[in-house]
């Protein structure tokens, strides 16, 4: 299709053309992605090989002290009078080996079995009580094992950089460069090494509270950790892909697969409708308030923003109370005589789904109203002026000016909202608690999202292995959607993400 045809087409048609082009290019793109895998692997291997090669070449080229630093970290640095760096590496080595010998080796050794000795009970006749013999605790073995592996990986990194530092020190000494003093080293942390200062604490926090739990949880999803295998009384162990097979309905408990399918589809339906209704209605509300001649704008806005400011657990618990079978809403409707029987807002499966969507509108519309208002006020007034002179109707102005403008700015927000709604724990849990519960599901209710299901089987059933699998699957779904948003900035358009 020629460019001219494309430009003369209507907006809807253009979108269709763009979509068709994209769909046509899709197989090719997927194909080239898979075709590039061998090349990428080859490239990666070559890079690793050359890095390893250059590392061991240091051993051949370096002098005695650099060679010595392969065994005693920091030896080369100390020889070239870089006491601070040298002492740091030496200390790191000593500490690591103490850690490894006393702690790391024990737990890494047990990592393959997650412990073999069950805690025992022995009757103590003198005291008349059961005494427990200390057994293995699979949970701690797993946790400490993972920590040890991470520490070992860190050590390897420090080790490599220490050898490099020794070699660099040797070369600089040959070229007659004066070694930096301790003071210079410290001030460099505020200057050329400022990033190390800035990154250290946040990275540490992320590693401890995000990366480590993530790795731990992924590991648990390959074990049989549940109520019946609960340390310290019992052990749990690796079971491979058993849990994943169970949740996809491939094992002897088809109920799980059915539950997962049902809850997953409701999660996606919920996320779609919750996002769309809030977004569209919030935008409409903002436009209504923003219309010329409507006053007092500020008061109206404040009224709606007020609901954002009330903590969700308060407003939702209160709503739950209002909407209960014998709650205020039903009582009033019965008194007026509109209904005979109470409306089962939260106890009937289908009705509960509608109720949570409606209440979610109450929660969410103010947010999108607030954001759209900010954008609306920012659209240059002369655009409307010019279009009115050209004879555009208000409807046309909305379609050609307002909508594209707002959409352009809020697309990332829209997709973050979608992902946020997949994980919208609060609205569901505080309002319906995932219920009404149903026997068709394994420990699940009609309005359960993956995340509330996960929470229930973690806290109630203590079925950690299953919870981990659900967590991983939710993560993959969210990551897939989010990557669509960020893919532009991650890959092609460098300017945006420098």
């Amino acid at each position, binding site marked *: 299709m020629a460019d001219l045809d494309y430009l003369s087409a209507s907006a809807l048609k253009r979108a269709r053309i763009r979509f068709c082009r994209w769909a046509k290019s899709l197989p090719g793109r997927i194909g080239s992605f898979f075709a590039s895998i061998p090349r990428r692997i080859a490239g990666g291997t070559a890079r690793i090989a050359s890095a390893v090669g250059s590392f061991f070449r240091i051993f051949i080229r370096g002098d005695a002290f650099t060679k010595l630093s392969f065994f005693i970290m920091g030896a080369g640095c100390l020889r070239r009078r870089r006491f601070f760096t040298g002492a740091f590496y030496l200390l790191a080595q000593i500490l690591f080996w103490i850690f490894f010998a006393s702690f790391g080796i024990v737990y890494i050794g047990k990592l393959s079995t997650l412990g073999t000795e069950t805690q025992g009970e022995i009757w103590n006749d003198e005291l008349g009580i059961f005494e427990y013999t200390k057994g293995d605790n699979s949970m*701690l073995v797993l*946790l*400490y094992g993972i920590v040890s592996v991470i520490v070992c990986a860190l050590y390897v990194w420090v080790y490599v950089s220490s050898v490099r530092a020794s070699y660099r020190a040797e070369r600089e000494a040959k070229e007659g460069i004066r070694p930096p003093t301790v003071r210079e080293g410290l001030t460099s942390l*505020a*200057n050329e090494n*400022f990033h190390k*200062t*800035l990154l250290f*604490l*946040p*990275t540490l926090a*992320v590693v*401890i*509270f*995000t990366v*480590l*739990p993530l790795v*731990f*949880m992924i590991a*648990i999803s390959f074990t049989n950790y549940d109520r019946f295998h609960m340390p310290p009384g019992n052990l749990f162990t690796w079971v491979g892909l058993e849990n994943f097979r169970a949740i996809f309905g491939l094992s002897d408990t088809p109920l799980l697969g059915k539950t997962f399918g049902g809850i997953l589809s409701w999660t996606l339906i919920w996320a779609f409708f919750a996002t769309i209704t809030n977004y569209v209605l919030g935008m409409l*509300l903002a436009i*209504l*308030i923003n*219309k010329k*001649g409507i006053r007092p704008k500020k008061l*109206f806005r404040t*009224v*709606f*923003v*007020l*609901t954002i*400011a*009330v*903590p969700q*657990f*308060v407003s939702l618990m*209160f709503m739950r*109370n*209002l909407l209960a079978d014998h709650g*205020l809403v039903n009582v009033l409707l019965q008194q007026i005589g509109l209904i005979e029987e109470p409306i089962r807002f939260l106890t009937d499966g289908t009705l509960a789904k509608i109720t949570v969507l409606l209440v979610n509108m109450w929660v969410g519309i*103010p947010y999108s109203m*607030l*954001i759209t*208002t*900010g954008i609306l*006020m*920012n659209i240059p007034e002369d655009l409307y002026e010019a279009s009115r002179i050209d004879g555009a109707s208000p409807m046309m102005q909305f379609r050609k000016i307002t909508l594209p403008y707002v959409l352009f*700015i809020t697309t990332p*927000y829209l997709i973050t909202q979608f*992902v946020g709604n997949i*994980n919208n*724990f609060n609205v569901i849990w505080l309002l319906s608690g995932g219920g009404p519960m149903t026997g068709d599901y394994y420990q699940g209710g009609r309005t359960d999202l993956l*995340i509330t299901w996960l*929470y229930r089987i973690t806290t109630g059933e203590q079925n950690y292995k299953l919870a981990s699998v659900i*967590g991983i699957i*939710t*993560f993959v779904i969210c990551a897939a959607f*989010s990557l669509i948003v960020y893919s532009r900035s*991650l890959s092609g358009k460098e300017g945006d993400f*420098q």
Partner: protein
Amino acid sequence: MKRRKIAANVLIYAILILLAVIWVAPIFFLVIHSFRAEPGATVQYLLPKSLTIDNYTRLFTETELFNFPRWYKNTLIVSVASCLLSTLYVLMISYAFSRLRFRGRSGMMKAGLILNMFPGFMSMIAVYFILKAVGLTQSLLALVLVYSGSSALTYYIAKGFFDTIPTALDEAAHIDGASRATIFWRITLPLSKPIIVYTVLMAFMAPWMDYIFASVIMKDNYDNYTVALGLFQLISRENIYHYFTRFCAGAVLVAVPIALLFLFMQKYYVEGVTGGAVKG
């Protein structure tokens, strides 16, 4: 033409007022029931028969079973500490990503984006065991660490903001002999008020709203409960009849400061979410 316009405006007013009533009604009922004198979770009438401020005073006087003042103080401590810590984390990491060039920078940025898609409390069991291993469970410090722990991953909003500050300022200061740290403290931070306010606001509000992490970490240590956790106790099945009105009173006391804060700072919230695309 003019008549049609007026008719349209009347219609819009009607819609807006109706919506405003729907939106305010639950909050209105919450407030009015916090003054209700009769006990019970639900009553058979719209407005309370008699009003009292007992529910408020008893929150502060009858503290043996439900120590509301203490919960309030806990939440305040946790939110102030965790908002200081997370603001520091976010500003440090986003400045590094925005202004400094170092090896592994883009890899770290990508890793951060992907890790951030991982909702924190999915791994709460693991977090609990980690805290247990270092003996920190059921303490306020644990809450502070957990709330601020993953905040660095939300760097992209602040980074986007730093990107818009002209680098010419940095270069000028650099030529005058300022170190990178000086540039960060003296030049970039003073120019970043909107994004600092946004970060502080979000981090400060989180502990008042969060229920899940607090419940997993605190278990049954009532002394260290936050308000969200404590108020939940008031409406458990065996307490709800006697304590529902007091729950409402406590909820109002939590909502008022947060509401005021949010109303004053909403401009910064919008700026933060739209990535600074909205000015003014």
